[in-house]
């Protein structure tokens, strides 16, 4: 929207941004667009930190636009809506995840798979329809098209819900799409971090038997006592892995480091499915023989569409599923990023934006 002088009308905003590939974050005054007719503006209360934020602030994927305001697991309270907004009203608790736009017209978008649209617009460091750079949830307010905003049911605590907007949908989507959500199935979850711990919770809520597969024996008690997994396999223990061969209907692999697929394929029953949701930056080795001998598949997925994200939130509300988090003030964020590199968090940092993000007077 432009004013009579032809200038874009915007609203003031404040956040923390990385200025360069050092990835160090610091305060930044910036602006967001005025609330358009289909837009929802909300006060950001909490924002989770995803490993992707780390990749982006450090330009590890070579596509970062600086200054870069990260954060795509944000929740808050609606303060303004456009005149064509139908599903949400002022005061609603809402969330925005990894996307804020797509083309809206291709087959993929029409089938509620905006996440696979060739023109999908990420929440951070991308070009929006109006040519401006998208800015994420490490900020006081957010403006987003209603289509990309989910409603958060009242019974979900906002801080522990924020990681569901990315980590949650990332593991929920493949469990549903690949039919690994049937009660009685045996599902393996590889890696017990931000994605893995939520995968355990969702899979248990779906009625499946869950085995956590991890390199760290120390995570066993966590997995079984706290998260409710049925069993735990140390992936470096050949005897344990051998004993569990051909026992799993599906495996959700959340590990983002390069790792061997052969032992995981061996854990699958005939016709089992290994779904990768971590993002190793180099190719993995695919042994073909074991794939053939058991008619098994290896697949990958990337977040989920908006309809599915809302479905996931509603499922989480029904089953009281939230993330296990460490709430931090905004000025701890650089330390949090350093700890995240080492995997030193159980299991997601969430920035208390509402109470700690203050612009200096």
């Amino acid at each position, binding site marked *: 929207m432009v004013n009579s002088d032809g200038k874009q009308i915007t609203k003031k905003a404040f956040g923390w941004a990385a200025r360069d590939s050092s990835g160090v974050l610091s305060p930044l005054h910036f602006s967001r667009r005025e609330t358009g007719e289909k837009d929802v503006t909300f006060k950001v209360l909490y924002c989770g930190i995803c490993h992707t934020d780390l990749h982006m602030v450090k330009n590890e994927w070579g596509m970062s636009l600086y200054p870069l305001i990260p954060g795509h697991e944000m929740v808050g309270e609606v303060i303004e809506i456009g005149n064509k907004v139908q599903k949400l009203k002022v005061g609603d608790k809402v969330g925005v995840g990894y996307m804020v736009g797509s083309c809206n017209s291709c087959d*993929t978008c029409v089938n509620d*798979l905006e996440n*696979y649209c060739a023109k999908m617009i990420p929440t951070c460091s991308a070009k929006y329809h109006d040519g401006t750079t998208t800015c994420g949830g490490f900020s006081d307010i957010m403006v987003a098209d209603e289509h990309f905003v989910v409603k958060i049911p009242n019974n979900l605590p906002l801080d522990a819900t924020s990681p569901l907007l990315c980590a949650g949908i990332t593991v929920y989507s493949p469990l549903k*799409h690949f039919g690994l959500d049937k009660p009685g199935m045996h599902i393996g979850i590889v890696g017990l971090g931000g994605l893995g711990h939520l995968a355990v919770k969702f899979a248990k809520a779906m009625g499946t038997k869950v085995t956590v597969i991890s390199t760290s024996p120390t995570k066993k008690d966590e997995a079984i006592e706290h998260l409710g997994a049925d069993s735990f396999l140390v992936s470096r223990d050949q005897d344990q892995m051998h004993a569990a061969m*051909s026992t799993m209907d599906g495996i959700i692999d959340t590990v983002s480091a390069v790792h061997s*697929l*052969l032992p995981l394929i061996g854990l699958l029953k*005939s*016709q089992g499915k290994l779904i*990768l*949701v*971590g*993002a*190793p930056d180099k*190719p*993995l*080795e*695919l*042994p*073909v*023989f*074991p*794939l*053939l*001998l*058991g*008619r*098994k*598949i*290896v*697949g*990958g*997925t*990337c977040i989920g569409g908006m309809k599915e994200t809302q479905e996931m939130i509603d499922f989480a509300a029904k089953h009281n599923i939230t993330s296990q988090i460490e709430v931090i003030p905004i000025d701890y964020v650089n330390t949090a990023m350093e700890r995240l590199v080492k995997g030193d968090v159980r299991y997601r940092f969430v920035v208390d934006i509402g109470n700690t993000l203050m612009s200096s007077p």
Partner: protein
Amino acid sequence: MTKSPEEEHPRKAFGWAARDSSGILSPFNFSRRENGDDDVTIKILYCGVCHSDLHCAKNEWGFTNYPVVPGHEIVGIVTKTGKNVTKFKEGDQVGVGVLVGSCRKCECCQQDLENYCPRCIFTYSATYHDGTKTYGGYSNMVVVDQHFVLQFPDNLPPDSGAPLLCAGITVYSPMKYYGMTEPGKHLGVAGLGGLGHIAVKFGKAFGLKVTVISSSPSKKNEAIDRLGADAFLLSSDPAQIKAALGTMDFIIDTVSAVHPLAPLLALLKLNGKLITVGLPNKPLELPIFPLAMGRRLVGGSNFGGLKETQEMLDFCANHNITSDIELIRMEDINTAYERLAKSDVRYRFVIDVENSLSQ
């Protein structure tokens, strides 16, 4: 003391066997079991030569039990049936494929997926229920449990139909399982050999648009003019690959050499499936980005169960689908193996056992 192959069983048999990992075949006297109550004795007419025969003869997979009589694309005539045999009678034309036994009790066997039974018994170089070695179709006769014998349709020529028993089912099974039978969908067939050329024929019979993907430009005319493919993509030409990005619903990958998966994955649409039926002897490189960004998958498939193999034969009979073959005499088998190693065959050798195998 272990009995010699000739003395092991009561009925004399004759074939050609490889004795060591040179893979060179030569005449071999052995024996077959008595025809049991559930068995069918088959006089072999033709036997297709599968690349697996070559791998096994040369012990390339490391588990060959010498001497090995290869051959699992067998067509012949029933000469004897056991008292429990109901499906066949003497004089019937029948086929035998990759398996001659399985446990018959596990979940896979119960679901007609004997090919995924952990205790399935291969037609050659395996150990049968009675502890003896199985010998394949490069021989004058074979004795098989009726469950593992297929009715070979009368209107299918036994020579060009023989390769269907392995090559045919190897591509038919994943095409059915992974839903490649919806008319109008676009199938890529990577590799145009024994498996690939049959996949093209099945693809067209299912009403699919078929593109052959090959590294040999010389195969273009074959693919389009003779086999009826709709298009041909030279995999070494980046411009052709680029033009076809994101256009295919499925790809059947029949290539058995180690090869890059990245360009094939890029050819797939959203939710596309790359199904490998070739057997590279080393792992392949799997890039994760194209998998995740398009919700694509890579799957494998290993020949097929008996019920499905029969269904496939009947489908071929209805659609007049056979393999393109070069008929050879038994004594030419070693030359055929040398040519097969260089893929110098269009597209399957078939041994005229009845007319050329003699003691």
